[in-house]
């Protein structure tokens, strides 16, 4: 018998938690991109999540290429939960080689998606798919956003851009 819509939702809900710590997220947690990587940082900043004590430091190397500032290298370190670590890892993967403007847009999109429960679609949804289930765990959103908030603070520390 096919599932009714309601049953479908119920089933989905009972699997929620595993979806939070799904394989893709765990992969980032276990082998995080950019974690404790040595780079020639132009700026770095430490972010703290007061609610849980997570600490993360994000560092960037910025180059001026074709009229724009580009993140040529990015790394992070610190003591944080798996959600935060995985989110930082995905962040490092995605922003490497992006311009500051592109990075800011991406940050705003992710923050918006997580805080307003608007579904992510298209490319964005693909890039951040390991984090999508966090929408259903409001208390953990801050964990996923900490790397991004910290990156935004890091960029503010840059010497003025042309």
């Amino acid at each position, binding site marked *: 018998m096919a599932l009714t819509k309601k049953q479908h939702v119920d089933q989905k809900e009972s699997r929620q938690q595993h979806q939070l710590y799904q394989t893709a997220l765990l992969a980032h947690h276990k082998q995080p991109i950019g974690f404790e990587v040595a780079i020639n940082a132009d700026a770095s900043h430490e972010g*703290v999540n*007061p609610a849980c004590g997570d600490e993360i430091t994000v560092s960037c190397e910025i180059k001026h290429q074709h009229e724009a500032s580009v993140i040529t290298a990015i790394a992070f370190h610190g003591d944080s939960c798996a959600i935060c670590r995985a989110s930082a890892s995905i962040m490092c993967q995605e922003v490497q080689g992006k311009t500051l403007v592109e990075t800011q847009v991406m940050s705003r999109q992710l923050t918006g998606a997580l805080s307003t429960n608007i579904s992510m679609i298209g490319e964005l949804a693909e890039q951040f798919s390991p984090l999508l289930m966090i929408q259903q*765990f*409001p*208390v*953990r959103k801050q964990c996923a956003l900490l790397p991004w908030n910290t990156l935004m603070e890091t960029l503010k520390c840059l010497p003025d851009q042309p």
Partner: protein
Amino acid sequence: MSIVSPWKHDFPVYLSHAHPNLCYLDSAATCLTPKHVADAVFHYQCYAHANSHKGLYQLSASVTERVEHAREQVANFIGAHSGENISFNHGTTDAINLVAYSFVEPLLIEKQEGDQANIVISAAEHHANLLPWQRLAQQYNVELRIAPLNKDGTINQANLSALLDSDTIFLAITHCSNVLGLMNPVANICRIARNKGIPTLIDGAQAICKGAVDVSEIDCDFYVFSAHKIYGPTGCGVLYAKGSLFDSMRPYQLGGGVIESVNYQQSRFITGPLKFEPGSHNVAAIVGLIEAIDYMTDISWHDVNQYIDNLANYMHSELENLPFYQPLIKRGDSNEKEKISTLVSFQVKKVHCHDIASLLDNDGIAIRAGHHCAQPLHQTLGVNASIRASLGLYNDVSDIDKLVASLTTAHKMMSL
């Protein structure tokens, strides 16, 4: 007007096994509780209780969400911009003391030695909106100015305006006196204060049960009220603060949940309304408040107000027919809508208020006698005490008739 209040059966206290003959005329002190509210609190305690804002587990996360959603609902109810402008506490008294400590005292501390300063309140304040300001005024040796009243018991705007000057650091007045009952023109008053750069607090304890409060329209800096005066449970108060005022205020009580980080020697505080909610939230009472607001909205504020206003008119007319009736404030002839007070404070000629209350109690009438936590106002009006009858949505014509009959007997029995 229907003979029996259409909402009376929502209040279990009137059930036949409880107090079927109760004639409750003390809603200005505290409202009786509708079953909806008691049920919601019961349900919360039995099936949903956990610590909010601290646990990651679902039971706790749901409670957190409930509290945060409650902020939005209250904001919506009083026309506030957002839930971020709403902080929960334990009652109007708690909220006013908080503002005195967190917002006003720092202004006084800032004042240089020898600087003039004054705080302005009205002659009609409840002790809760008098004593905290009196203490601050004494402590910092500044003036506490008292705005006088009009003959109808409302605050005299012209006189108040004259009291506000460049040394005034705060204005705290009641939206509606718990003794006199008429609504003050707080939007006008706040405009006058704003033009002089003076921050304002409105004590909404009595006004809130009319359901039509709009803090954005009033444009005050702070608005406070208690859940139990709007058919909610005891133990929950609301503090509204405009814009980002919360962020500029120092924390009041300190405890769990208000810090971003702390070591033994120093602390960094969080921002937003949570900064003023240390320790475990009284979630059961917050849940009850939301249920009370929902209950009133469902049955229609408009219908309830119309009903109570009609009943109040009947009450005033009937009482005015009694030869021994001496109201603290005489009703004007104007029949304007805003001029209907749903409570009345009065004396019975030559009979002491406490004897009246005791005698009425014998007939099952619950009525207040004393100074109603507004002793200076009574002094101003030249009396020690008064009897107060105040209406709720469970009252009906029969309550007024009982009151009038019982007063008549009591007067006959006691008068010298």
